[in-house]
């Protein structure tokens, strides 16, 4: 097996062990491993959230820089780096955690798909991924049913895909600040809807087990985000950053 297979193998065996502990329930096992993985990468998640918040907080100062230095891009860039340094963040602060999390998502996805074994050939192929733990051999075949859906098939009632999109939208909304700049506002709106819709669309076609992972992961992320930044953009604000409030005087 190649190195990637060893990672997938570890996740498969952990899923089986968790299912055995959790009343032989495969859905609970997926929820549990999602919680475990999210807790394990929480330092990265917190860093990402704080980085994003710091980025939002310095936006007014960034706009001042644009006004002050106009087309002097070099000066703007150096002043931006100074602002980042003062705020204790780096431009890649939002991206690095995402780049670390993405392989984890992919590995967990592959582990779920292999374990749920849509065909007999897939089930037979699972044998090469099993550790010599007795629980692996007494627990298989891994059950596919959880609540109303088959974990190995797309959710035909579409509740899970909708939950995937909705939780992802709430997550995005919480981190999307109101913005006076029309161009940035437009970009924010695009990001707010693009990612949730894309994942909702993907969820229509992917196994429900993966959608379950996404929903739980999003809910955890919403919880962490709330404790760090509160409801953020989910609660309507009276004014956007940088927007002066003009009071009518009589």
């Amino acid at each position: 097996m190649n190195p990637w297979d060893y990672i997938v193998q570890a996740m498969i065996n952990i899923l089986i062990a968790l299912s055995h502990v959790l009343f032989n329930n495969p859905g609970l096992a997926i929820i549990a491993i999602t919680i475990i993985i999210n807790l394990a990468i929480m330092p990265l998640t917190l860093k990402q959230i704080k980085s994003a918040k710091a980025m939002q907080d310095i936006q007014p100062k960034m706009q001042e820089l644009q006004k002050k230095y106009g087309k002097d891009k070099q000066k703007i860039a150096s002043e931006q780096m100074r602002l980042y340094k003062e705020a204790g963040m780096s431009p890649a602060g939002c991206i690095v955690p995402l780049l670390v999390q993405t392989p984890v998502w992919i590995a967990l996805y592959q582990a779920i798909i292999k374990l749920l074994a849509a065909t007999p050939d897939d089930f037979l192929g699972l044998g090469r991924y099993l550790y010599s733990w007795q629980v692996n051999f007494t627990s298989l075949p891994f059950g596919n049913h959880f609540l109303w859906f088959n974990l190995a098939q797309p959710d035909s009632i579409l509740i899970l895909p909708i939950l995937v999109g909705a939780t992802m939208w709430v997550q995005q909304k919480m981190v999307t600040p109101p913005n006076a700049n029309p161009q940035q506002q437009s970009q924010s709106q695009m990001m707010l809807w693009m990612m949730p819709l894309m994942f909702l669309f993907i969820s229509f076609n992917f196994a429900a087990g993966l959608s379950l992972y996404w929903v739980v992961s999003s809910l955890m992320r919403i919880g962490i985000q709330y404790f760090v930044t509160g409801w953020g953009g989910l609660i309507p604000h009276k004014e956007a950053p940088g927007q002066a409030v003009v009071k009518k005087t009589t």
Partner: protein
Amino acid sequence: MKFIFKILIALSSVILLISLLAGCAAPAVHGWSGVAVSGNNLYIGSTNGSLVGLNATTRSKLFNDLPLEATATTSGFLGCASATTIIYTYGTPVVSMDLNLVFVAGYNGRVYAISADRGVQHWVYPPSGVVTKFVGGLTLYKNVLYIGGVDGKVYALDAATGTPVWAEPFATGNEIYATPVADGDTLYVGSYDKNMYALNISDGTEKWHFATGGAINCAPVIQNGVVYFGSFDRNFYAVNAADGSLAWKSKDSAGKWYWANPVVSNNIIYAANFDGKVYIYDAATGNPVITPVDLGAAIASTPVIAGGKLFVATEDGKSDSKIWTIDTTTYTPKLIKDLKDMNTSGYTNKLVYAPLDLGQDASGNNILYIHTHDNTLIALNTDTEVILWSQPANS
């Protein structure tokens, strides 16, 4: 901010592309039908969803390859290649020379009876709709077909007409991948509910069941009133056929699950395990005859014995298999063929999941038939251990 925005767009595009590519990937191969040998005729459930009949001597077709169902083509997702519905076969066909019929069960949930010489469909069960997915093979016994389904039920059908023989199928607690075995007035079948069942063959009612710690995938071997089988719990069992009581259980667990059927010869049990070892037991006592013979790679295909040798196929990586012999006197293993040496353009998956099957040529020589996962059919002389011929099953 613009930099981050662009990165996020790029990442989203990659994720979307991966999702789309997953839908455009070439369909995987499925099915592991063995070769049914009837006189000089060979019948195989091909991996492209058809029943193939061959003359073993001339290798000419007995009839045009018969698709089990009219194939339906569905349009692809967002312009990807269209998909064709293929009826996979996991169980080996069975032949009734009395009725001149070949029987095959499809993963689509239907059992087909086809004339052995002309390839014409005689009956199909159920006549309309489907019952359940079939992975286990058919057993033909006294003109009745027995098969277990993914719904966990055991079905009995009249071989001549395809009508159910029992008032209702016998229900176990989980899927059935194993092929039932008939002996006397009893039908034995293992289930993924971890039980080996003995049923009254006349009406499908239960005589007894024996519980193990894991799912049962293999067909048992019955000899001298004892039922021999391996379980996913890594143990090998001998159970008294009369009452389902335990005769003996392997003292040491194997490394992985027992997937392939056991083989018995001269009161010696050969139990091939997914850990790559063949466990050899004294049939009467369960004592190991020798240290397990380690062939180094997983064994999923059921072995056969011919000419004092046990022929075994092991997985070699993700797309190849090796053929071994184990001398049944000295228990010495010998590698006789690495099937990847036979790869040709378009045929590069020589995994052997299907059971190995034996036949005889016109001179009485034992011929081993191997059906690989890329639908190649191989014939090997068991005495000389030389490959006689190989060809795509559908050529």
